């Protein structure tokens, strides 16, 4: 059970952009990611909460993407145009994965 170095990219972005970001990732060949729901938060534009919300306008989602270190730049290049004008944050963390051939 060896562990291999990888990158964990976490992107928190507006719900309305979920489809765009998915497309951008898949187009860039980044086909492994997981989407986690988000229930609230706070940023420069103040606090928000998803409670009782019907519109998708206010909400956010979190993408978690594990990938080989050498693919990081491809991911960043494809994500940046989507993230650029929109509300959201991105972080990149060093991590280790099992079964490196999957990433």
């Amino acid at each position, binding site marked *: 059970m060896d562990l291999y170095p990888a990158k964990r990219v976490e992107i928190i972005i507006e719900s309305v952009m979920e*489809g765009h970001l998915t497309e951008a990732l898949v187009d860039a060949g980044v086909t492994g990611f997981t989407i986690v729901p988000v229930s609230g938060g706070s940023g420069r534009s103040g606090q928000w909460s998803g409670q009782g*919300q*019907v*519109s998708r*306008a*206010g909400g956010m989602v979190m993408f978690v993407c594990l990938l080989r270190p050498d693919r990081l730049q491809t991911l960043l290049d494809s994500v940046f145009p989507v993230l650029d004008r929109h509300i959201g944050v991105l972080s990149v963390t060093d991590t280790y994965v099992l079964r490196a051939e999957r990433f």
Partner: protein
Amino acid sequence: MDGILALAQQNLLSPIILSFVLGLAAALVRSDLNIPEAIAKGLSVYLLFAIGFKGGANVSSHGADLELALALLAGIILSAALPFVAYGLLRLLTRLSVVDAAAVAAHYGSISIVTFVAASTILDSQGIGYEGYMVAVAAAMEAPAILTALWLISRARPESRQQDSHLWREVMLNGSIILLVGAFVIGWITGEEGKRQIDPFITAPFHGLLCLFLLDMGLVAGRGLYKAQRVVSAGALVFGITMPLVSSLFGLLAGLALGLSLGGVTLLMVLAASASYIAVPAAMRVALPEANPAVYLTLSLCITFPFNLILGIPLYITAAELVMAG
């Protein structure tokens, strides 16, 4: 005048309005009362399905071809034209940027389906009839305003970038439009027989479920009001109350021109006067991310929606009555 007051009071003391007020009050005292997001979405699916279906079933029994087409056309024109009025009024009353003003204008050209539902419920309880196809007019009025807003911006900023396919999907294939139109078509196709089958679902509990939905909207609006002071200037506040009054006049004229019934004229006034807070905000986040959502959401949801719900609807009914009696 007495008529308006009596109607306003009667309206104010109905379960649906009081449920909204309860939600508003609970949020303002910062209670932890809340409706889960999934339940709120489920309620909105129910309301859209029920109101769409009932409209379609009604059209199926009364027929509406040319009338319907003309009313749809009028709705589209209203939705496309009102943003100009809103934009002008905003530039007059506020210091909002071009982008913010255009985004707000898109909301006021488009419509709020819950305001429409509340108004038709009030008409029902007053025994005032209306054209079943008004719900199709509501659907037709959702999107055109967005195009006007984008045009306003592209005129002011010719360098602004092309909109992509995502926006068009967001605007035209928006879930609430599809559901409303789809249910309308199902109601139209299945007619009286279909209505008979699902009537105990779409009619009997409708009023009560609307109460819960308005409770939720009160909670959401109340939470929004916390941020309102910082975001909304006095001028914007004036806009949030004046604009529905102005729009309702356009609705009134269009309704009279179409020869609608009293209820139909009222509903067209309500549609014109109401501002979107579900579909258009989402479209604006896609199309105009640089517009400040706090401005348009606060105006539409925390100012204009409560105004229309509590005072506007009785006012529009009375105005339509006066004009059509005269």
